[in-house]
């Protein structure tokens, strides 16, 4: 690092500047009020210094002043709320063209899997200038994936999948911290994001040892675990067909309708009885303990590629 004392984290993502802008706005408002009140109190302390036995002026209050100093903080607080909420929405909605990377947290390491199948541990290589969407799962307790230089963080919660996204803007190496306390080596659950030029990233990917892409692995698991015996490409199986299911609205046999997102798919594998599709029997066994979080992410990646059966669309070759 440099010889000067760093007082501020590096800004290396598209949102970092926006987060810092809100920070400086609230800092300015806070500093103004902190200085205002401190100066007034100290001024009054000196200006109105009195002796024992004296009494202050007979003042009881002022409705006008109360309204002013209720109103101004209220308005400022609402500005901060709206600004903060807007930023939160940006941070919560990944761009449609984001590349997917899977991250699994376990005590006490991060396992990363790129869509092409390259895996790494406690490191995350990403290209700059391209949105990256992380899908996060946990094998044990709650963790939290935090990249201070990108100003992003997300809890990694067992039993569900969460997502976060960023676009790196500057090449370099940045900290990854687990920021949700997770046991003995919580502070050792750290890693490095390596933000690279896109061509360097491609070269890095090509040099990595791939064990098949996530979709390929998912397809293999789909057969190995015999999912395919019930979930057929057409509607002839004992289970509903999964072609086109991702992103669709599913009618359940208890009358509810749910959106089939990643968490729905995850739940349907781990707790199949929780939501049974209309017209089907609750006969699917749970795969709890049979598939790891990484396998789950691969299965979901595969199911997401299953398009409604049409002769033309055969990327899956089923």
């Amino acid at each position, binding site marked *: 690092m440099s010889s000067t004392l760093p007082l501020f984290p590096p800004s290396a993502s598209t949102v970092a500047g926006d987060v810092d802008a809100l920070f400086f706005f609230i800092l300015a*408002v806070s500093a103004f009020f902190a200085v205002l009140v401190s100066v007034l109190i100290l001024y009054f302390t000196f200006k109105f210094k009195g002796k024992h036995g004296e009494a202050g002026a007979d003042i009881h209050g*002022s409705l006008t002043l109360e309204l002013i100093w209720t109103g101004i903080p209220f308005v400022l607080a609402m500005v901060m709320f709206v600004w903060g909420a807007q*930023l939160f929405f940006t941070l919560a909605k990944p761009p449609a063209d984001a590349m997917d990377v899977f991250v699994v947290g376990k005590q006490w390491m991060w396992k990363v899997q790129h869509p092409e199948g390259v895996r790494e541990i406690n490191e995350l290589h990403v290209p700059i200038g391209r949105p990256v969407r992380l899908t996060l799962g946990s094998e044990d307790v709650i963790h939290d994936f935090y990249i201070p230089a990108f100003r992003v963080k997300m809890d990694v919660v067992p039993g569900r999948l969460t997502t976060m996204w960023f676009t790196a803007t500057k090449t370099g190496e940045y900290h990854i911290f687990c920021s949700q306390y997770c046991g003995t080596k919580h502070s050792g659950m750290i890693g490095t994001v390596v933000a690279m030029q896109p061509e360097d990233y491609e070269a890095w990917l090509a040099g990595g040892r791939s064990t098949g892409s996530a979709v390929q692995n998912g397809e293999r698991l789909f057969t190995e675990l015999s999912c395919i015996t019930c979930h057929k490409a057409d509607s002839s199986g004992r289970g509903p067909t999964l072609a086109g299911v991702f992103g669709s609205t599913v009618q359940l046999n208890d009358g509810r309708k749910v959106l089939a997102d990643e968490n729905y798919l995850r739940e349907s594998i781990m707790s199949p009885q929780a939501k049974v599709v209309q017209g089907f029997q609750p006969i699917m066994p749970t795969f709890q303990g049979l598939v790891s979080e990484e396998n789950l992410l691969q299965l979901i990646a595969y199911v997401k590629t299953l398009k409604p059966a049409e002769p033309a669309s055969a990327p899956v070759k089923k």
Partner: protein
Amino acid sequence: MKEADVQQEPSYLGAPYGLASWLLTKDHKRIAILYLISITIFFAIGGSFAAMIRAELVTPQGDFLTADLYNKVFTLHGVVMIFFFLIPSIPATLGNFFMPIMIGAKDLAFPRINLLSWYIYVVGATLTLAAVIMGGVDTGWTFYTPYSSISSTTNVTTAALGVFITGFSSILTGFNFIVTVHRMRAPGMTWFRMPLFVWANYATSLVMILGTPVIAITVLLIAAERALHLGVFDPRIGGDPVLFQHLFWFYSHPAVYIMILPGMGVISELVANVSRKQIFGYSFVAFSSLAIAIIGFLVWGHHMFVTGQSIYAGLVFSIITMLVAVPSAVKTFNWTATMYKGAVVWDSPLFWVLGFMGLFLIGGLTGLFLGAMGLDIHLHDTYFVVAHFHYIMVGGGVMAFLGGLHFYWPKMTGRMYSEPLAKVASMLVFFGFNLTFFPQFIVGYMGMPRRYHSYPAEFQVFNVLSTAGATVLGAGYLMILLYLVYSIVKGPKAPMNPWGATGLEWKIQSPPITHNFHETPVVTEEAYDYLHAPAPTREVTHHE
């Protein structure tokens, strides 16, 4: 105000004598002293855990404590300081002692229940100490599931039961206070003549009785899940780990107001006294306490912006969080305005007021950073949060507690301490506190997560500053303990009204008689009528 007959009846301290008379007392003042001794012990225990944390963090490597021991130490620091010091601190000591006197009552409504609440506190606290002796607990004071319910192999159940039991002490105290304020006010003591300290304790009591049952149920569910594998929080058997966070923060966020509201009440008393002036905007200060207590129940989800909770739930929690900042701002402005055209006396209470205001301002304002959702994503679970809540709970809460303790010490013990030493101590605490916690805002924004046993080297300088500050802070606290204890032995006898303050508590002898008043007082004036307040009688009574 010369009442020669006043000194003839023995004070509550001496009548009757003996240990049994203290342990079986029904006198709210003696129970307050029992609490004061207990919480001081726990403050010392919690403080020594803090010292171990700061010693570990001097270097980036985890070299002073093992990782497991460090995790246990910060857990116990939090558990002890929050459940066994901060929550009972002002209500159970100063509140217990002065709230009945301030409204002209001879005791709380239920003296036996008051004693029971102290015993429950002692049993709960002892059980948690037993968990420490058995090997400790490492979940963090937040007991997050599923780590606490399935993963941790430490004494979670024992510690949780300790917290569960202590909760009843809180509930009983709150219940006792509410009934007392409703039913025991002296003739003429209308709601709007009550000192603001009473209002603050009333608002706090509401939070205690409404919130505490939820934390009790929650920690009990953890114990049940550990013992019986219930599947409430463990996702592998159908539970939801985030449900725990909802239940936990439903109590634990309002609990922050249990810690700070009584402090605000103390500061209202002190500001009026040091300014020798009626409090500015009495009813706004009073109602802002209730507003904080009520709105404070609806903000718990701001601890969970990054758990994947619904964005729309997050929006609601964020806007209400911003709203709850407003009544705190209103109070601050009213305290400031109270000093305008006052006759500000530079006695030691002024120093605690100034210290409180400085620290509470920073603590309150930094809450805005965390309430803004998009910014909280970056700041959540970093040292910025640690610094923020220490500014509120220690900077605000403990400063107010110490201010109140100094202000009321002559009344409680009948002795005066050294004014110059108190002024030095207050400045030492103020300086030490800022040196400890201000660097944590910076290192927090740089990204240092909380609860880290080791950390990257670039964060070291801030941690060294923090540890240096903690040393000063510790010295300040120790100094206070020494001169206050010394004052009991050698301090000059305190007069009835050393600060020339208004209020019924200053019209009775120091220390008070067991039944507080010889005759039930009749109140004819509003609170803080400093136009007609007596001058301090300190100097005169030294010769008595």
